[in-house]
């Protein structure tokens, strides 16, 4: 294989766009490359991608980037307006808002990441199983999904958090519990449309087991719309997490969680507007980043464009 790659070397691009790939690996790369070309033409999506990449980088390099300790109170320096020393000013305990923002990025990323890797596979599993097997399995799974879908998302999260006690872990759990039903719905809808396709029946006629059919043949067809939906939903999760933080039910003080920071600034809204405004903007920008990314992915992966 390696020799084949090197003989095709005259240009990486040529290798990627070859009409006659020589190996599985090359075929996969070529496909990914074409997707990337299409995606990168969408300027808004590229902005979204850079916001998300930026969020990840800020999380990793927070200790290097933050000019101050995010938790260090300095009452002599309370609610200072933005200045050269404190770009975004200070809060009611004299902590540097910029540093708190930088350290706060990790909570946002943590919530979004954990919810996505728990809720999406769960929804995928429930949805494909329901759609594939149909009958009573479908009926039972979809009724359960409907029950969770019928719950007011934020209120259910609120109830869970208050039942389990406030805190970031419980906030994540609460959001994950409310996040999976739409994925199950999407996966089921996709499964039902492909279930009767000839290529699925053809695979069945070669003796492919149900399990292999779901994993190898049906799941790939659900992935596009699911990836798009999860990316778009990450924006919504950020907002719910921030909402829980705002209500004091998410991350607990003194953790620099952005929603809680908005809540802190609420009492000084009229005179010291920046205390509430800046973290709110941060939530907005990151959430918008995920939305732009998801919207761009939709154009590439899901040309039908439905939700």
């Amino acid at each position: 294989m390696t020799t084949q790659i090197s003989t095709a070397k005259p240009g990486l691009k040529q290798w990627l766009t070859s009409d006659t790939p020589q190996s599985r690996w090359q075929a996969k790369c070529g496909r990914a490359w074409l997707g990337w070309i299409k995606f990168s033409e969408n300027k808004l999506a590229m902005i979204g991608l850079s916001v998300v990449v930026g969020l990840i980088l800020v999380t990793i390099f927070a200790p290097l980037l933050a000019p101050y300790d995010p938790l260090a109170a300095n009452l002599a320096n309370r609610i200072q307006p933005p200045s050269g020393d404190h770009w975004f000013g200070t809060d009611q305990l004299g902590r540097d808002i910029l540093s708190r923002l930088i350290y706060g990025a990790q909570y946002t990323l943590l919530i979004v990441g954990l919810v996505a890797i728990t809720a999406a596979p769960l929804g995928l599993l429930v949805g494909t199983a329901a759609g594939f097997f149909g009958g009573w399995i479908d009926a039972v799974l979809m009724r359960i999904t409907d029950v969770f879908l019928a719950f007011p998302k934020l209120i259910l999260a609120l109830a869970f958090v208050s039942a389990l006690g406030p805190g970031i872990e419980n906030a994540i759990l609460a959001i994950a519990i409310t996040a999976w039903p739409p994925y199950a719905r999407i996966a089921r809808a996709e499964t039902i449309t492909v279930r009767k396709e000839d290529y699925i029946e053809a695979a069945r006629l070669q003796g492919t087991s149900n399990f292999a059919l779901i994993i190898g043949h049906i799941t790939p067809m659900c992935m596009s719309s699911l990836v798009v939906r999860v990316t778009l939903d990450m924006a919504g999760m950020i907002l719910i997490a921030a909402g829980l933080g705002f209500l004091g039910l998410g991350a607990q003080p003194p953790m620099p969680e952005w929603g809680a920071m908005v809540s802190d600034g609420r009492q000084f809204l009229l005179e010291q507007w920046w205390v509430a405004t800046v973290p709110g903007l941060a939530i907005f920008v990151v959430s918008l980043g995920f939305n732009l990314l998801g919207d761009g992915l939709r154009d590439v992966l899901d040309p039908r464009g439905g939700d």
Partner: protein
Amino acid sequence: MIEISKLNAWFDDNHVLKDVDISVPANGSFGLVGESGSGKSTVLRTVTGLVDDWEGTITVKGKKLGPKRDKDFYRLAQMVFQDPFGSLHPRHTIDRILTEPVNIHGLGNSDARVVEALTQVGLDNAFRFRYPHQLSGGQRQRVAIARALILEPKILLLDEPTSALDVSIQAEVLNLLGRLRRDLGLTYIMVSHDLAVVAHMCDDIAIMNHGRIVERATAGQLAEGTLEHPYSQQLYKAAGGYDRAVVDTFVDWD
């Protein structure tokens, strides 16, 4: 090779096959002709186990089929679908499409088998790592045939294998199918709406309407046009092209 008797099948409350009897000798080629809704494809789908609700007896190579098909059955009989754009998984490369059945049945040596199957259907090895959307309709149908052949079956069930193709491509695929039957000693059941295609490919022909076989004929009888049932006669006339006077003699067979 294949004996079907008193086959009945239902979709929900619709009785779609009514007492169908078919017998195909080894290396024979049997044609089923009919219009949409005649049940011709359902016969094939029932044999392969894609229809659950049926009664009657199906005997393949001396073995009576139960409600479920086992792996051995799929090594014995394979199906080729009508629409080459729908029967290949859009996210799988040709290589994966052909390798998977080899692995499922644990035949081993998948590389050589894939190459051989591609050669059998007249495709260059350059196609191996392409995705289906990078192929033309005729090439796709060749891949579908290669997928059926890779398990070395004795029986091919052909569900309108050329009706989605242009006529010039149809000729190539029909020639390929004819050659494979001769070379590999295959047994065919072929379903088509096109009398001429079936007449060209098959020795024995049955004409179906509303789930029932209304007439049986040999290729020779078709060539002479000596059909008896009025429905088959009508179908025969319709195959001859447009003739204003003939159309007035048509009856609706609902």
